[in-house]
């Protein structure tokens, strides 16, 4: 059996409300909240980035797995906001958590799919028998240009998953990936904010790939949507994952626990992984979980998980997504937000 032996998530405490952003641009807050189906988003502290978020999420994963960090043979961090253009994020993480130095570390980038990609690579290494444990992380401090629709959603957070073969809490039964060259969203080297192709990001990009991967995964697993207790899809806003679920035949109830976007926003590479962590926080043995990520460019990774008895033992060993989503929030005004997001030009 190969699957998740430990998981952890991290969300910063800072928030900004959709109203606060709308006020800045003279936009209609109610229309935006209705359209995007989200009311606020997480904002990283000035001292937080993909690396620190990954460290705190992975710390939770190690606490839950209760393993010796030295036994982790590979670490992958998927993000589109790695703090360095050249220098890996994972090296800081391994030295902070006592993993390595005998460890394989790599940085993943595939827009919002980099996190599930890291999970997939970690899973594959363990499945091949190459190593006992591998760590896959999706984390981002997402960028959205001021005034752009993305500004209401681009948020910060991440989740980490340790793959292994013993004391598995969520077995990975099937995977499937679906990829094509689709220029819906990108950021060129040296550019600060990403660009997107507006409504082209919908049907030809997000839905085509999520539904493509999802349908193939259902066929491969010979399972029907009704067999699943939970489902989670990449959450660029509140509406898209609901619509993707509907197109694949899932109900709103199945999406309920992973649909954390209304209060979290879009944590890019951390989006569906954090949704998965929120589901594991409430999952029961025997539950089947359906997950499909999406990364612009574009591609989707699909996973079918089966929760085991182990989940009961590990759930409470680290902070839960819901408690981080609901507690200790510090709301920012737009000025503070621009400072947190390094949007002010300063003398260096």
């Amino acid at each position, binding site marked *: 059996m190969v699957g998740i032996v430990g998981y952890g998530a991290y969300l*910063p*405490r*800072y928030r900004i409300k959709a109203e606060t952003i709308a006020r800045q641009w003279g936009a209609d807050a109610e229309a935006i909240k209705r359209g995007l189906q989200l009311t606020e988003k997480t904002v990283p*502290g*000035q*001292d*937080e*980035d993909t*690396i*620190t978020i990954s*460290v*705190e999420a992975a*710390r939770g994963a190690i606490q839950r797995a209760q393993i010796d960090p030295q036994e982790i043979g590979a670490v992958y961090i998927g993000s589109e906001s790695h*703090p*360095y253009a050249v220098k890996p994020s994972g090296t*800081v993480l391994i*030295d*902070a*958590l*006592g993993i390595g130095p005998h460890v394989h570390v790599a940085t993943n980038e595939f827009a919002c799919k980099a996190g599930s990609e890291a999970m997939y690579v970690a899973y594959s290494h363990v499945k091949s028998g190459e190593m006992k444990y591998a760590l896959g992380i999706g984390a981002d401090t997402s960028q959205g240009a001021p005034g752009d629709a993305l500004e209401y959603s681009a948020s910060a957070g991440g989740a980490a998953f340790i793959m292994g073969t013993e004391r598995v809490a969520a077995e990975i039964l099937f995977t499937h990936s679906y990829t094509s060259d689709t220029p819906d969203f990108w950021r060129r080297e040296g550019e600060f904010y990403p660009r997107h192709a507006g409504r082209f990001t919908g049907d030809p990009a997000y839905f085509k790939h999520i539904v493509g991967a999802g349908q193939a995964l259902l066929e491969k697993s010979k399972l029907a949507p009704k067999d699943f207790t939970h489902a989670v899809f990449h959450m660029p806003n509140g509406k898209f994952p609901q619509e993707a679920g509907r197109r694949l035949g899932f109900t709103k109830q199945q999406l309920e626990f992973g649909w954390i976007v209304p209060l979290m926003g879009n944590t890019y590479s951390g989006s569906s992984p954090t949704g998965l962590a929120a589901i594991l926080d409430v999952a029961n043995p025997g539950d089947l979980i359906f997950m499909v990520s999406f990364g612009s460019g574009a591609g989707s990774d699909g996973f079918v998980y089966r929760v085991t008895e182990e989940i009961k033992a590990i759930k409470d060993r680290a902070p839960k997504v819901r408690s981080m989503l609901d507690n*200790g929030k*510090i709301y920012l005004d737009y000025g503070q937000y621009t*400072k947190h997001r390094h949007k002010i030009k*300063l003398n*260096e």
Partner: protein
Amino acid sequence: MISPRYAREIPQRYQLVAARCTSCGTIGFPPRRVCKHCRGRQFEPTKLDSDGKILTFTIIRVGADRFSKQTPYAVAVIELNDGTRLTAQVTDCELESLEIGQKVRLVFRKIQEDGKAGILCYGYKAICV
């Protein structure tokens, strides 16, 4: 900040690695060559407790240029549960609500940047618990 100087302190800053004197048990953080209590020369590595309390603190309103974009920020002298004392920023808190005796936990954060193009420097900060 130059890389060699930063790299040398990584075990202390990332993982709170300290040295315990094998003759008297006193913990040195950062590790010392000579025990400050008994002048012993033999040590074993140990990791500090990440929980503790604030002994005293201030809120820096005027920082050095390197920290000027972080102001205002809180700095505290913290006593960890193992008795070790250190200085760290207190982050993610309402500055006005801090007080002596506040229970804190050390977490991993970015501490400073070596300008726009230099290395990023990480380490411990405290959060209120």
